[in-house]
């Protein structure tokens, strides 16, 4: 008990004021907005998007829905990532809901293997879409990890995975309008590199987060 009293005295003496961290949702949405803008700009910088993509977005409701669900899944993944970095902020219900929406979105592409949303076509093919997806996702993933590291992620690997997933899925989603639309190609060359980024981010962030004494 004496030790505990000494510890409390040590922790409270010369107490510095701290700036309360900004709201996790606000950080997540700002990060998402900046990341989406960055991915859109850099994708256009390195090549044009599929010529008929915008027309398809306007005229094929299922394609529009697929993109909206994708954006919702990424938004929820980003919110979950930043909430995971604040103790007690990520509730099991929200975590489950975010995972469910992500699975629904990705499940849509699996369903597309037998019933594609758009007529499969190689129109708009980008030669290195898988490399682009992975490379474009890396900076947002690292920034997300940096921001989360400034908070207090109790489960660092889990948090880094969520950051990587949210970041990896942004270019993966945008490739649906920037590259050719064939469900097998989407799963293998857009979604898979995005998922790989999630794992890579966790691997890279682990020693980085380990320096925090959590």
């Amino acid at each position: 008990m004496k030790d505990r009293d000494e510890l409390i005295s040590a922790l409270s003496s010369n107490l510095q004021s701290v700036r309360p961290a900004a709201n996790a949702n606000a950080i997540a949405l700002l990060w998402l907005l900046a990341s989406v803008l960055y991915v859109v700009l850099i994708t256009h910088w390195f090549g044009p998007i599929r010529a008929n993509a915008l027309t398809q977005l306007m005229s094929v409701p299922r394609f529009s829905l697929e993109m909206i669900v994708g954006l919702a899944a990424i938004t929820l993944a980003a919110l979950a990532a930043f909430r995971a970095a604040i103790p007690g902020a990520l509730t099991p219900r929200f975590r489950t809901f975010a995972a469910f929406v992500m699975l629904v979105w990705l499940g849509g592409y699996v369903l597309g293997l037998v019933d594609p949303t758009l007529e499969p076509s190689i129109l708009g093919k980008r030669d290195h879409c898988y490399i682009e997806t992975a490379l474009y996702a890396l900076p947002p993933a690292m920034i997300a990890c940096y921001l989360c590291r400034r908070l207090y992620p109790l489960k660092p690997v889990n948090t880094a995975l969520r950051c990587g997933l949210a970041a990896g899925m942004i270019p993966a989603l945008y490739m649906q309008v920037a590259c050719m639309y064939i469900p097998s190609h989407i799963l293998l060359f857009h979604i898979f590199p995005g998922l790989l980024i999630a794992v890579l981010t966790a691997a890279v962030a682990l020693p980085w987060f380990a320096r925090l004494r959590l």
Partner: protein
Amino acid sequence: MEKSAITSMAQLCRMPLASEDVSGNDEERWSALMVSAQSGNEPDYRFLLGELSSCISRYLYRRFGAHHFIEDCVQETLIAIHQARHTYDARRRFRPWLFAIVRHKAIDMLRRQRSQQQLATAQQELRMTDAAGQNISPMEEDLAQGQLLLSLSPQYREAITLTKILGLSNAEAAARLSISEGAVKVRVHRAISKLKQLLEAETA
């Protein structure tokens, strides 16, 4: 069985909720104290840590029983609270924030349990048990206070008690339980996962 006996048994087996450790007044007071601590108010912070340490001790004792690692866990949690104090948002409730840290530290401590000192204590306990020809040691009796551990199945409880609380190695625990070392590892891993789930469920 009589109704009163059933009720008392249900009360005995019922897991205390995290909310039972914290009243609504505590929640509001702690929130206000933490906001004050964030702006650098030393007396408020000292008072807050003092109250939190009692609450955390009570919470852990009720779930894990009286064990040597509880005090370490309380202190580790206080340090974590200190490091994470900037993440407390006054617009959110204090309790989920606090107990997320407590839960994390408790499970973390349980995973890391096993120092030489504990091993020596455990061996001494085992010798005492063998000499007296009893089935359970005094330290194991202490477990009865830990209602969370009581909610584990006997297999998991035995495994986690021997390795993480009495401090035996996996091989020693395996010999005592007459199972393989691998089975001990699996039981301990599952027991910790189960404890984590139980703690999360009660504070959710």
